[in-house]
């Protein structure tokens, strides 16, 4: 356990001091929210309650979530993961640390968008109280877990440059097809079916249900749980392959 904490601490310090990471993961979603609000003004949101706030916060969750991919991919390619394998650090602990650090960016990323929404926006038709804001941020953050597991899976499956490419691809798919700005109800049937199976749709569903004062729908929770278990298990298998070469 103490070994895991030592690795977690190193990873957290290393990533949190990187200015590019901070700008991309924390600054970008908030900037997108502000730009969209300025451009679209008070046009009613196309999707459900909390519309733009939830959509952009989900985008931030995806950006931070898949970020475990490139760092693992780089460290797999340059041999650092193999070096760690010669120490008492348990492999699963190393992957868990990457996921936790990715999650540590997702929380402020979502919170900053929510804060911008609370201050600048008109709550977009929803009047949220303090507890609802906290619930919104907290539950959307927890719903990001399967996306970080997906990021870890990508980083362990593809080394180096390929990991960057695969991460970008995953990001684009989750962004465009994942129900963030275009709800599945406005998509062709086939694409809508895919969209409702993606974890980003689950994150949006959780956000909209909280903003609308309801509990998250069971279908969304099932999708999120399935991705967490599935991507997590595949990441564990991929780790074994990295080690066995």
């Amino acid at each position, binding site marked *: 356990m*103490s*070994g895991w904490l030592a690795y977690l601490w190193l990873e957290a310090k*290393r990533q949190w*001091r990187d200015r590019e990471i901070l700008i991309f993961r924390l600054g970008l979603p908030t900037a997108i929210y502000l730009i969209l609000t300025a451009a679209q003004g008070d046009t009613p949101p196309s999707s459900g309650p909390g519309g733009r706030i939830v959509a952009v916060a989900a985008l931030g969750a995806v950006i931070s979530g898949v970020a475990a991919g490139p760092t693992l991919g780089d460290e797999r390619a340059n*041999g650092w993961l193999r*070096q760690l394998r010669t*120490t008492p650090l348990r492999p699963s602990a190393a992957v868990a640390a990457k996921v936790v650090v990715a999650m540590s960016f997702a929380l402020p990323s979502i919170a900053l968008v929510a804060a911008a929404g609370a201050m600048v926006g008109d709550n977009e038709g929803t009047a949220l109280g303090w507890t609802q804001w906290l619930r919104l941020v907290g539950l959307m953050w927890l719903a990001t877990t399967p996306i970080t597991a997906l990021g870890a899976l990508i980083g362990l499956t593809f080394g180096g440059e390929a990991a960057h490419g695969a991460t970008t691809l995953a990001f684009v798919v989750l962004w465009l097809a994942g129900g963030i700005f275009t709800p599945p109800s406005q998509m062709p049937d086939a694409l809508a079916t895919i969209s409702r199976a993606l974890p980003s749709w689950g994150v949006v569903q959780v956000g909209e249900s909280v903003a609308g004062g309801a509990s998250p729908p069971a279908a969304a929770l099932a999708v999120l749980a399935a991705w967490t278990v599935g991507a997590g298990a595949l990441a564990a298998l991929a780790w074994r392959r990295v080690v066995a070469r």
Partner: protein
Amino acid sequence: MSTDNNTPASPTTPESIAAFEGVTRRYGQVTAVDGLSLQIQRGQTVALLGPNGAGKTTTVELLLGLLTPDQGVVRLFGGAPAAAVAAGRVGVMLQDAGLPQGAKVAELIGLIRGLYAQPLSLADALRLTDLEDVAGRQTQRLSGGQRQRVRLALALAGNPELLVLDEPTAALDVEARRAFWERTRESVVAGRTVLFATHRLEEADTVADRVVVIAGGRLLADGTPDHVKSQAAGRSTVSMAADGLPRELLERLPAVAAVEEDRGRLTLSTTDPDATVRALLQQAPDVQGLEVTRAGMEEAFLQLTHEEGGTS
């Protein structure tokens, strides 16, 4: 103490901390390690010597449990290699392993200290590897020599019983190599066992008290540096322009142990250059560009490995 040449593996004695018993490892068609049997005793400084492609890295990775043997058994501290690694008994410097971007030198050493039960102090780890001045520097701002020292520091910081270094000086120039070994020797306290892979005979000669020579994945020689050198000593080379000389003719000349062809020149290794040259001039009187060289240490080692390994 060193074992005699080619001693077959005996049952693990209390002294022995690492053992290979008839270990073979293949990659597809290539046999990287071929029936290797070897024991390492506590307190030894062992050089694993061989040319590039000899199977050194594979041997190291088998020892650490990063690879599993296709045949045979590898034991480390009496059990499975992975268990010894998990127990923190081994410190490792892999060949060319990178460092994570954005981490500071002291933080990386701190990580290793957090992973091992009885680590060196941060101050000691920095001092032994001469990294005090760059302790607060991020890895991407280090020079090549500094990175190498950081990797040594990571291997040492856990204060392990066994130190394993795979080609630790491959990327360094002559000066830096000498400094590296001075530092490493200083930091190896009594009782610690060291295994390092190298393709430089002079490193094995000056640093190790036991040299294990492998090529083509097979054990060629095992003993003190003097013993290994004497096995390869007494050789000379005779070289000449190739000019269509038949190899078979050269191979049949007296005292010739091996024939090599490189960039239009044929090189014979011989134990008796006088006899070889006399016979050569009789059988090929037109031979051009004749040169006779007494074997230095490097050549002697190359002959030893080419003669019997030869696959790489």
